[in-house]
């Protein structure tokens, strides 16, 4: 299946916007992804192995929290989207926001 990588996480996935992984469940797909790109793991999972609360995962257009979470079965044509929260907008340019370099 295809996993879409959002812009903020692409630096940890060899700058790719999508990755193909073989998987039968959402959990398998995500562990396939993080075993290929180990830097992604700490962005997606807490130290005790739970998906982080600010990273939402969608199977097609549905939040996996409202399906069977990581046990949700997937099929070949499905798309998994990782959608992290982003805060940018106004930009006060104090160097504290996400669109200003430091």
């Amino acid at each position, binding site marked *: 299946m295809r996993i879409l990588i*959002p*812009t*903020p996480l692409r*630096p940890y996935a060899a700058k790719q*916007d999508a990755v193909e992984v073989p998987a039968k469940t959402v959990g398998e797909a995500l562990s396939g992804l993080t075993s290929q790109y180990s830097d992604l793991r*700490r*962005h997606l999972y807490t130290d005790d192995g739970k998906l*982080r*609360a*600010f990273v*939402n995962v*969608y199977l097609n*257009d*549905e*939040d996996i929290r*409202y399906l069977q979470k990581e046990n949700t079965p997937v099929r070949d044509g499905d798309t998994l*989207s990782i*959608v*992290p*929260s*982003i*805060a*940018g*907008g*106004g*930009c*006060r*340019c*104090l*160097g*504290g*926001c*996400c*669109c*200003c*370099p*430091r």
Partner: protein
Amino acid sequence: MATVAENIQPATLSNEEVLRYSRHLIMPEVGMEGQLKLKAAKVLCIGAGGLGSPLALYLAAAGVGTLGIVDFDVVDFTNLQRQIIHSTDDVGRKKLESAEESIKGINPLVDVRKFETKLTSDNALALFRDFDVVVDGTDNFPTRYLVNDACVLAGKPNVYGSIFRFEGQASVLATKDGPCYRCWYPEPPPPGLVPSCAEGGVLGILPGLVGVIQATEAIKLILGKGEPLIGRVLLVDALGMKFRELRLRKNPDCPVCGKHPTITQLIDYQEFCGIRGEEAPATTKVPEIQAEELKQRLDAGDDIFILDVREPHEYQICNLNGYLIPLGDLPKRVNELDSSRDIVAHCRSGVRSAKAVDFLRQAGFRKVKNLVGGVLAWSDRIDPKMPKY
């Protein structure tokens, strides 16, 4: 459909207004009834920056009667690439003054209410009370959660938009029966996992795209027409020019809008987001060198290895002729450095290079210092010909 339309009391239109809004009046979805709703409507824009610029201009042009703007910033040159409500001549002026002038230029009939303040837990509810719709154009997680919670508590819809590089998100949150931002993201990312400075930047037109989507949603809420982005998130990818839609569900256990809320008043959002005062994480104390001292030592012919930890595209803007290893590559390229030499690390402002110095010291480097203020300080105090960005 949850709508603000029924709460708004229509007035009448003058002949001048009939002419001005005639292209609205001749379409049945707006018509006289809708235009009067727009005239009676009060919209509060949080921020007059990237998102606030286009949305405030379009809401003004469309005939929204009252536009409130909350902002305490001053226009600078780096804003002009995307904040189209401000002009080159406005650099140095308060964004509120500049925004009001642009709005009045487009539509002098708009009542602009300026709030020169930071939005806080102490003032948000009182500010929101007098408005029908809140449009969130802020740029940081604490304010995002503050706007959300205040909208839920005050019963005002939150027209949400957010951008990063080439990507944007938009939704309509905190309506009576719809989900709120906390249903979507119960917790903010810890500061350490927010995208790092090396991956900053935003395509200038992106806030235009997303801000105009927010303006469209605000107007639909006022008119009570169409299908608002309630229970849906629109994802905008400007690079692929793809628009995708995700379902957003109301969480019955949401701490602020759920069945048994635990957050019934505004909280400390800095603390909630794990930020305690020292927002710029110059927290690691490392050996430092000032720009003047570096200049003196270089002029004296001292053997100093300058390590530039910025990204290659930043090096192209300006550089100190240093050796380039981006901060993210440092762990795997550390063997390129000679720990017996004096090393001065620098970046744009000194934050990334402080991390580099900290890393190198842990790797056993003893003769490494951080250039305080980075190339910005160098440009300010040593070489004014060096461009700042």
